[in-house]
Each structure stands twice: as structure tokens, then as C-alpha cells.
């Protein structure tokens, strides 16, 4: 049986790890390498490492940093930040990540997904989609670390990205991000219903119950979370024990 994954997310910004609220008010939460080592010791399912300053600063995630982290990481690692060219993907895979997360680069040039998928296989491309909910209930995809509206609807973009060769979708609710008030279940359901690739829900986890909800009601195939693991005593393992008690298959 394929196990449902719980994925801690590490956000990197200029020399350190940060966590914000709704993609703003960033707080320093530590340095990358010790965090990766701890998660490796705790045998988490997978890690996502995103350099959130890369796109706004017009550069690509620091490959040397990735190389150092991957050296300590005998578990799955997805890396993202400013990826715009197939060469960026090659460098990151070589450094020891086996998946890349592409966001703004794919929105600006959707053909990048086709190109990377053809060369490296679809299993290595995670399409990261950041979404804001407007007051009228309409959802819109935002690029550039949540700062620029794209006019795209999340379901449409998710479907297109999957058709072009995306392997997974990392779907983040900007509104819920860092609030620990629960995932946006409706948004997750909308997207998971229209694609046949795995959907990883992100943004809003504050309890194991929230994680359970997004997997069952939201139809997500995996749950990513940051604040809950950075700012509370809860661990990925405890979350998985809770999920197991609810009949969800996890790796313990």
C-alpha cells in the first residue's frame, strides 16, 4: 500500500530558514543544515526546500547550499527557487535532489514543463501553485512568491501543468499560510478533482486534525506543513500516529 506522506517544508531566505504568515512577516527559524539533519534522524517521509528569495532577486536557488543539504539527506528532497531553464534542473538534480519545484518559471513559460519532463521524466517535476482567495470567493494563482496576480484559475493551471508533464502539484493557500487555522479544503478539492497526478496540500496546518481533513475531505495525496513543526511541539511522527488512528495508511 502506498503510504500517505507528511512533508515538512523548509523556506530559505538569505542564509537562513524563515516562516511567515500569508507570504509576509517572515521570522527567522534557524539554519538549514541542522534542520535537515534533525528531520533525517526523525526519518520523515520527504523534505521540500524552497529558496523564496530567488525569484524576487532574479536568481536561481543556491546549488552549493543544495549540495551541502543533500549530502546529509538520505531521504527524498524537492528543491525550488527561481528555476527558469532546463539547465537549472540539471544542476539541482546533480547536487542530489531528485525533484525540483517550479512555480513562476512555469507560469511565465509553460513550455518549460514540457522540456524538463521530456529530458528528466515527469516524476522529477513538482509544479508549485500559490493561490489567493478573493473576497468574492474567486481563486487566483499568484507568482513571484505570492506578489503578482496571474489572472489564472488554479484548476485550469493545474490541469494544463499536468498535461504538459508535471509530476506532482504542491498547492499552497497564501491566505492560510502560516495561520495554523487549517488548510483551504475547498481549494484542495477543486484541484485534486481535475488532475490525475498527486496533489500535495500546503498552507494552514495547525493540528493533526487539519492534516487529516485535507487528506480526506480535500482529496490531497500528501500534506506539507511548516509552522506546525517549527513553532509547536508537534512532530511529523505524532501527526502520522494520529492519521493511522483514523485509518489512513502512513509509514511509522
Amino acid at each position: 500500500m502506498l503510504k500517505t506522506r507528511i512533508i515538512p517544508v523548509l523556506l530559505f531566505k538569505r542564509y537562513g530558514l524563515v516562516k511567515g504568515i500569508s507570504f509576509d512577516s517572515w521570522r527567522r527559524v534557524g539554519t538549514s543544515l541542522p534542520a535537515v539533519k534533525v528531520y533525517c534522524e526523525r526519518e520523515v517521509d520527504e523534505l521540500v526546500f524552497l529558496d523564496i528569495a530567488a525569484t524576487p532577486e532574479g536568481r536561481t536557488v543556491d546549488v552549493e547550499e543544495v549540495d551541502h543539504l543533500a549530502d546529509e539527506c538520505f531521504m527524498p528532497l524537492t528543491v525550488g527557487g527561481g528555476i527558469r531553464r532546463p539547465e537549472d534542473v540539471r544542476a539541482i538534480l546533480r547536487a542530489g535532489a531528485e525533484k525540483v519545484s517550479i512555480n513562476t518559471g512555469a507560469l511565465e513559460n509553460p513550455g518549460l514543463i514540457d522540456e524538463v519532463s521530456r529530458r528528466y521524466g515527469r516524476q522529477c517535476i513538482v509544479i508549485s501553485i500559490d493561490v489567493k482567495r478573493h473576497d468574492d470567493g474567486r481563486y487566483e494563482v499568484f507568482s513571484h512568491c505570492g506578489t503578482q496576480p496571474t489572472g489564472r484559475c488554479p484548476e485550469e493551471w493545474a490541469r494544463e501543468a499536468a498535461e504538459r508533464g508535471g509530476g506532482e502539484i504542491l498547492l499552497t493557500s497564501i491566505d492560510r499560510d502560516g495561520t495554523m487555522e487549517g488548510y483551504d479544503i475547498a481549494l484542495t478539492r477543486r484541484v485534486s478533482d481535475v488532475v490525475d497526478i498527486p496533489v500535495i496540500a500546503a498552507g494552514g496546518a495547525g493540528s493533526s486534525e487539519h492534516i487529516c481533513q485535507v487528506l480526506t475531505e480535500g482529496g490531497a495525496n500528501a500534506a506539507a506543513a511548516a509552522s506546525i513543526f517549527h513553532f509547536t511541539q508537534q512532530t511529523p511522527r505524532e501527526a502520522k500516529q494520529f492519521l493511522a488512528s483514523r485509518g489512513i495508511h502512513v509509514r511509522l
Partner: protein
Amino acid sequence: MILIVDHGLCNVDSVARAIEECGGSPLISEDPAECARAERIILPGVGSFHEASGILHEKGWVSAIRREVLEYGIPLLGICLGMQLLASTGTEGGDAPGLDLIPGSVVRLEPPDKTVRIPHVGWNEVHQNQSSPLFADIPDKKDFYFTHSYHLVPTREEHVLATTPYCGSFVSIVGSGKVFGTQFHPEKSLGGGLRMLKNFLAVC
């Protein structure tokens, strides 16, 4: 020296690090001539079969690896796409020839219904079908990390060392003599994966 084949489409560094962690001395190389010095060869891979097959044939890896394995009995481990490349043919990105060390073909996973998602990504059980030196100190049905859309269908049952339940069931480890292939990533499967790599390093 443990030679890690670098065909430009893979996570070579993480495989090399894992081999170091297991006490081996890895060498990442783009030069098939290094095969002659290798005590063991690892063919890693993420990427598409067609692309990788083209590069392996063009650069002379296919004949070099086949010679070491078939004439000198050098142990070989294919990982993920590297396992698939052991087959006779692949279909991803158009039909292409593999190393033809494990007779069989590589085809796409076929989901029985829409709830079963492709790629198959995450931790899943490896059911041991027969005894193998790779399984020393590894319990049956241990979870390993997978990420793939295609799988190898060996022609001969005796090459099936393990299977994994997804889309029905698919072959997750193949073996023939000292040639092995794992569809999952041992280098990314924490303790169990490192144990399996150690077992491969001990194959004699």
C-alpha cells in the same frame, strides 16, 4: 572503486554520498573507460528512458557495462531509471533499446481507476519474492521510496526478486546473477535503503 555512471540525467551526488556512508569509495564518471577499473558499477537515474538510452549507446556505456558484467562478473546495480535501462526495450518517449541484461520491456503504469495517481510517488512496500543477498537484515514488506511512472516487466519469472502493490502489483526489484535493479531509490530510503546498498557492496 564503485563506479557511478554519469549520463547527465541523474542525481549522481546523492548516490555517491550514500555509497560513502556505506563504506564504499564512489567515483562519478562520464567516461566508460573507467568501467575497466570498477569493482562494482551503479547505474542511477531519474529521467526519461529514451533520452538516457540514447546517451548510453552514444557514449559507449552499453558495450562497456555489458562487457564488465558478462565477461568479468562485475556486480551491477540499476536504480530507478537505471533499473529500467537493464531491460531489452523501453517505451517512454518512443521505443528505445536498453542494456538487455534483464529480458523484458519497460511500460507505463496503468491505473485501474482515476483515484490511483501516476506518477507513483512515495513510500511503498517491497514484497520479497525469493531470497537474495540484497535482502540481508531487511524485513519483508519494508517501505522504500518510489517516484516513477514506468516499470520493468521481465519476461522471465526468475528475475523477479520483489514486487510492490500499486496499480495491482509491479516488479520493484529484478536480479539475474550479480545484476540487480531497484525501481525505488535506496539512496533516498533512509536506513533500509542504506542497508540494501551495503548488501549490494557485499555481493560477491
